């Protein structure tokens, strides 16, 4: 009975979503206060029922309700409770439910924290979110229902994909979805602005904290995914440019551009059309990512079952949402968005250039991701492009961005002065060159490591010198408002990230070796002593567990336990052991026994020494923190900020003329 309640909840949520999507938008158009007032309660109602459906599915997993086909497919009696919760989003149907769930988290938050905005505007925003909800709820109910029963009920279920049985996986998908579903808010703000018209600076100010928070979540999600791939997949890599990763990376790149473009539009009133377009792009790419991952056009041999019906449905949905919004943009943007001009040497120009670099990078990733499809369409066979394509072009596009980055804070809005820029460039440049020369002595000809140090110091020193300048010139309390602190944090993150990538990529030592028990191998200045393999068991797996002692100068630093797990359904999964440190990671993965029958004998082992690899994720965390901190800017929350109030008064009576 309980799973049916989940299904009823979804149906009710769909009906409320339709109400939320239609009535408030009509109300805002007709200036009907009663219909406008439907927005908040409808959003809350949809939220309640979607949360209920989610709770029911979790309950079904926790109570081993194998009569539900989705539960039976993705969990079994031996699976521990926390992985049974994770299993909720371990496959297609549950992932889609999670998508809608997160959409409702955002809608409810928006309904709760938008009291200071004009009611008609909020009505349009919530209406757009409601329409998106309609699309996804209908998709779940008609093609991907997680509550379908399977009769007769199997005695025990299948298993959650062992790759997903990792602590990182418990929170990676929800956080990632918080990010890219979060772009729906910026999208809804843009559509509302296109529908309503005439208040670009005000709506962008309201949209900014939401965009920043969504982007920060997306950053965290990508960092977590990268960390999980590193720890779990057993290859020691941290980014593979595979379609699923790219699907989350494209909205991130556009999100970077969007955050900066919003700042320009909010503060200077320039580039409003571009900001709107980027909001549409960011969310469109999120939807596109969902489509690519879920429809199976790219990952037809991937683990996720693909159903052409689902693919067609999502494609139709994409056409309506993306096509419709771009059409609306084409019709309305000339009337709604007229930007102010700015001087060639100004912060606006700097941000514009960076924007072009980031959007081009996103387009490049999109092209590379779709290459196999293009190959099929042009009858070239299944061609795909790999890391060489992405690695080369991405570095090419990001190098100018890194070069320009320290100038950003120094550039004045409207018109900048050249002499401050040259002073900064001189200081940061000298610091970068000196550090690069010092690094050259240590890095022994690894050009990438030297370039990495140089680039990181250039960004870091430039950012630091701006921090010092603010400290000296501004009175206490006004030195670092949240928005600026966030910017500085995120830019520092870029410097940290650069060090991590360039040093770990060029200085890592990776060695595949054959070791007898008792034998020692030296990698990167550490001695790895293989002490044999023992058998161990977990709740739903058994494993061969290697014992590897790490020694330096004869002293034992750590004992590591890499595992090779065999899950109850026969899938084999490598669990690498990692001894983490701020300046280096030691990474051991267990290969295969040299003689199949003799697990007590020699084994193939993979030993890595990875300097500074942790800085990659540390840099990402700084960027994330920057996003959250900037979102806390008081100006965004001010109920009666002078310009916001002025802008709002222009809008509150939305006239028919503005919608024509």
């Amino acid at each position, binding site marked *: 009975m309980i799973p049916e309640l989940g299904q009823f909840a979804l149906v009710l949520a769909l009906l409320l979503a339709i109400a939320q999507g239609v009535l408030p938008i009509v109300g805002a158009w007709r200036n009907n206060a009663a219909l406008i007032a439907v927005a908040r309660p409808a959003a809350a109602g949809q939220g309640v029922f979607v949360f209920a459906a989610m709770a029911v599915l979790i309950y079904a997993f926790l109570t081993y309700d194998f009569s539900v086909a989705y539960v039976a497919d993705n969990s079994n009696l031996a699976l521990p409770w926390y992985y049974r919760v994770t299993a909720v989003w371990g496959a297609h149907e549950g992932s889609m439910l999670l998508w809608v769930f997160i959409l409702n988290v955002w809608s409810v938050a928006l309904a709760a924290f938008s009291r200071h905005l004009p009611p008609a505007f909020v009505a349009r925003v919530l209406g757009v979110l409601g329409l998106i909800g309609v699309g996804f709820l209908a998709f779940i109910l008609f093609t991907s229902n997680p509550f379908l029963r399977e009769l007769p009920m199997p005695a025990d279920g299948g298993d959650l994909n062992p790759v997903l049985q990792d602590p990182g996986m418990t929170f990676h998908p929800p956080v990632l979805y918080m990010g890219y579903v979060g772009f729906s808010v910026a999208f809804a703000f843009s559509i509302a602005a296109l529908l309503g018209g005439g208040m670009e600076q005000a709506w962008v100010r309201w949209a900014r904290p939401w965009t920043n928070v969504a982007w920060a979540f997306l950053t965290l999600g990508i960092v977590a995914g990268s960390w999980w791939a590193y720890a779990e997949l057993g290859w020691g890599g941290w980014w593979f440019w595979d379609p699923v990763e790219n699907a989350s990376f494209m909205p991130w790149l556009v999100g970077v551009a969007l955050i900066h473009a919003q700042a320009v539009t909010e503060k200077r009133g320039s580039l409003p*059309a571009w900001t709107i*377009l980027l909001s*549409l*792009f960011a969310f*469109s790419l999120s939807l*596109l990512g969902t*489509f690519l991952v879920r*429809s*199976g*056009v*790219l990952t*037809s*041999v991937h683990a996720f079952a*693909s159903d*052409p019906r689902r*693919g*067609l449905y999502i*494609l139709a949905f*994409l*056409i309506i949402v*993306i*096509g419709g919004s*771009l*059409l609306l*943009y*084409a019709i309305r*943007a*000339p009337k709604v968005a007229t930007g102010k001009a700015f001087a060639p040497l100004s912060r606006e120009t700097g941000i514009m250039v960076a924007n072009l670099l980031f959007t081009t990078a996103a387009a490049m990733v999109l092209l590379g991701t*779709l290459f196999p*499809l*293009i190959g*099929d*369409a042009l009858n070239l066979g*299944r061609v795909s492009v790999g890391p060489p394509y992405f690695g080369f072009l991405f570095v090419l596009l990001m190098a100018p961005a890194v070069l320009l980055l320290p100038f950003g804070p120094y550039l004045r809005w409207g018109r900048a002065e050249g002499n401050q820029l040259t002073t900064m460039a001189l200081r940061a440049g000298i610091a970068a060159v000196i550090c690069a020369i010092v690094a050259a002595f240590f890095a022994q000809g690894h050009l990438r490591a030297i370039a990495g140090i140089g680039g990181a110091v250039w960004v870091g020193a430039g950012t630091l010198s701006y921090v010092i300048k603010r400290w000296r010139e501004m009175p206490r309390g006004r030195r670092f408002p949240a928005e600026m602190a966030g910017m500085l944090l995120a830019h520092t993150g870029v410097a940290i990230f650069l060090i991590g990538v360039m040093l770990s990529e060029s200085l890592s030592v990776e060695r595949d070796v054959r070791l007898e028990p008792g034998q020692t191998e030296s990698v990167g200045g550490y001695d790895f002593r293989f002490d044999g393999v023992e058998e161990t068991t977990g709740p739903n797996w058994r494993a061969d567990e290697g014992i590897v002692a790490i020694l330096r100068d004869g002293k034992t630093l750590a004992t590591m336990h890499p595992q090779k797990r065999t899950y109850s*359904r*026969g899938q*084999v999964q490598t669990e690498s052991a990692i001894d983490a440190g701020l300046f280096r990671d030691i990474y051991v993965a267990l290969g*295969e*026994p040299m003689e*199949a*029958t003799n697990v007590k004998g020699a084994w193939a082992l993979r030993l890595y020494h990875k300097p500074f690899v942790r800085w990659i994720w540390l840099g990402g965390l700084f960027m994330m923190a920057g996003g959250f901190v900037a979102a806390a800017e008081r100006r965004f929350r001010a109920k009666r900020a002078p310009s916001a109030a002025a802008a709002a008064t222009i809008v509150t009576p939305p006239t028919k003329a503005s919608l024509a």
Partner: protein
Amino acid sequence: MTRLLPLFGFLVLVGLFGFGIWWNTHHDQHEIVSPLINKPAPAFALPVLDEASRTVTKASLLGKPYFLNVFASWCIECVHEHPLLMTEMKQLGLPLVGFNYKDDPNEATAWLAEHGNPFDVIAVDREGRSGIDFGVYAAPETFLIDAKGVIRYKRIGPITPEVIDREIRPALAALAKETP
């Protein structure tokens, strides 16, 4: 006009995705064109199940076409295709070579005792090394290898009656035409 450019760009993508869906519905998910088709099968030398002293090699199987079926006791789909191996596949008249993939030999023996043993000889690839050479993607898989040791056909996933009629019989007919 420039305002319409994003829309046009998007329509191109839609066309591409529509094509992608069409392509996927008209191509079998299991039909991954293996680079090994029409190439010599990789050399292997593997112990025979339950006869550890004996090995089966690629060379020892030359001279007559045969099927190589990748199976394992842990493989769920293998149970589904097994009855077909016992009946229709045997009736095709070619030797059936089992390729026990990443499996415990004891469990494999027990599994065969329970479900029946259709194989003429079973090679044990405990570590999956030879499986990598064969490009094994997941069990079950079935290869048709001709008398000269060339892979002529490959099926990823379980065999079904339709697969036998639509793919395996034509592949055998093509083989028969070449060697009169």
